[in-house]
């Protein structure tokens, strides 16, 4: 997962790029069998361990999801942590410092 966070005039903008296939469950493989759905359902972010973002997403989100959000406050060097969870229950957490 790639995370970029930048503070400008007291507003921190956080951009993330998550590596995930986001299988919709509608695609078929070469033999015509349906590839089972496996996609991210929830993404949450925290700033110095305080929640600052939460999104519910569905199959309609592109492969390797990109998302961005902004919040007030945040200073250079503060910790941003992002966690996603997919439909199988798998999760991943990434961290970055605000620039």
């Amino acid at each position, binding site marked *: 997962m790639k995370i970029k966070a930048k503070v400008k005039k007291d507003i921190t903008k956080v951009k993330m790029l998550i590596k995930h296939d986001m299988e919709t469950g509608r695609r078929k493989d070469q033999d015509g069998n349906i590839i089972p759905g496996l996609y991210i359902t*929830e993404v*949450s972010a925290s700033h110095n361990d305080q929640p600052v973002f939460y999104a519910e*997403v569905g199959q*309609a989100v592109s492969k390797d999801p*990109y998302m961005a959000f*902004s*919040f007030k406050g945040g200073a250079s060097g503060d910790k941003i942590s992002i966690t996603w969870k997919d439909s199988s229950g798998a999760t991943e957490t990434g961290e970055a410092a605000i620039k």
Partner: protein
Amino acid sequence: MLVGDDMNLSEKNMKIDRRGFLSNLLKGAACIVTVASLPRLALAAWNEKAFKAETLEGAMSSKYPGLEFVDSSAIKLKAPAIAENGAVVPVGVKTDLPDVKTISLFVEKNPSPLAATFHLTPINVADVSIRIRMGETSNLIAVVESGGKLHRVQQEVKVTIGGCGG
């Protein structure tokens, strides 16, 4: 005497062991409960009904039951007029409306119209972006929940190559 002492001792040990075992078991159970409830706190509930709805009306009413929609010019929906590749359509939603609780994106003609819901708090700036899939040319609808009302704006996005399947 010695034997008796030993027996007492071992009985004592057994008691401690049993108590220790029970308390460990309880601690273990408490840990499991904590671990199980943590992700729920961090990640509130995924609205399965709304995401699995197959019509726009179904998805909207599951997502926002009982709330009225008003068309709004206070929302800026940024999306391409023509998307060459439906698999990756960049979308941005921005608004100056106060007290924004949620922002949702719906694609009218997608097999599952609800694409995403962003939950915002007062510290957030109502400015989000995401890349979504669009199966075919369709209306893209952004809904902003603010002040107990649903504000809506829509735009047609023409899709040259579909983003679902194949």
